[in-house]
């Protein structure tokens, strides 16, 4: 499931709660539940992760996370 894979990538950096926040924020923004997120939502997911993490992480770190999610 995409939502769980994204949480797994984010977890080592931001812990379970913020990882879940990023996923839920994306699901809400596209009118889906977390479980309904699919590979077509990856661009929105990436944009949300960039927006939410930019105040607390560096650009290279965020791009590493986004690249792993996109892969």
């Amino acid at each position: 499931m995409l939502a769980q894979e994204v949480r797994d990538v984010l977890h080592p950096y931001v812990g379970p709660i913020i990882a879940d926040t990023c996923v839920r924020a994306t699901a809400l923004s596209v009118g889906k539940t977390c479980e309904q997120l699919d590979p077509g939502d990856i661009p929105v997911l990436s944009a949300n992760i960039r927006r939410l993490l930019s105040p607390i992480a560096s650009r290279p770190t965020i791009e590493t996370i986004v690249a792993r999610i996109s892969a």
Partner: protein
Amino acid sequence: MNGVQLLSEPLVSRRTMALAVGGLVGVLVVRALMGLQVGGEPTSRLLAEAGPLAVLVVAAAVTLRTALGFERGESLRRQWSLIGLGLLALVGGELASFFAGAALGASAAPGLPDALRVTGYVLLCTGLLLAAFSYRDLIDARVPLAVSAVVSYGIGIVVYFSLLEPYVIAGGGLTGTARALAVFYPLADVLGALAPALFLTIVVSRLYGGRLSWPWIAFALGVLALGVSDTAHSVLSSADLYRPGHPLETGWLLAPILMAIGASIASDVVELPLGE
């Protein structure tokens, strides 16, 4: 490999490990030399002055290096720059104090050293608060802010009424501006450095050990060590119990080392990405 293997991937660089090991060994060596009175009192006095200054210089340099490692416009660059400049101001304060002491035979207070130290506290406090508030879109910061304010002001009140008021203000060991500064520095530590550090620690604790929290936790421990040593120094000085080489100086050595480790880990997060 350019990092130290922890678990399955390198998470901490050789630089960070060198800071941790070298710092700890350095503290032990300095404390041993002072404890054994190697070179007599002049050497102890020199080590008491130069030791904390040397580690503070390292902390300022590592922090500014970390700050400049982030791209222009990045939030982390702003936060670490303010903290690094704050540490640089504290270095300036210590240097000015050292030279004033050497030239005048006694520390002239208040003066340039105190102005630089206060500037250092303001910059440090601002950087730590910026870092804590950067999580506001992800974490409700109101509870951590309230808890840190209550705890810090509580500690400030306890420090004031149980230590500063009876020993520094009423104790009579210090007078005039020296007494005012002996009251000011512990309270500045608690309210200007410990409070924002505690706020930041509570905020990043919501990351449950996530890698982005590591730099701030190490840095906050350094601020705590600084606060404890400054408070103990004020109280002991006012009771005329402080002498160069006192164990409380360990905190002045450890604090900048912990701060430098925190700043170095912040670089490690960028330099050693996971899953590469």
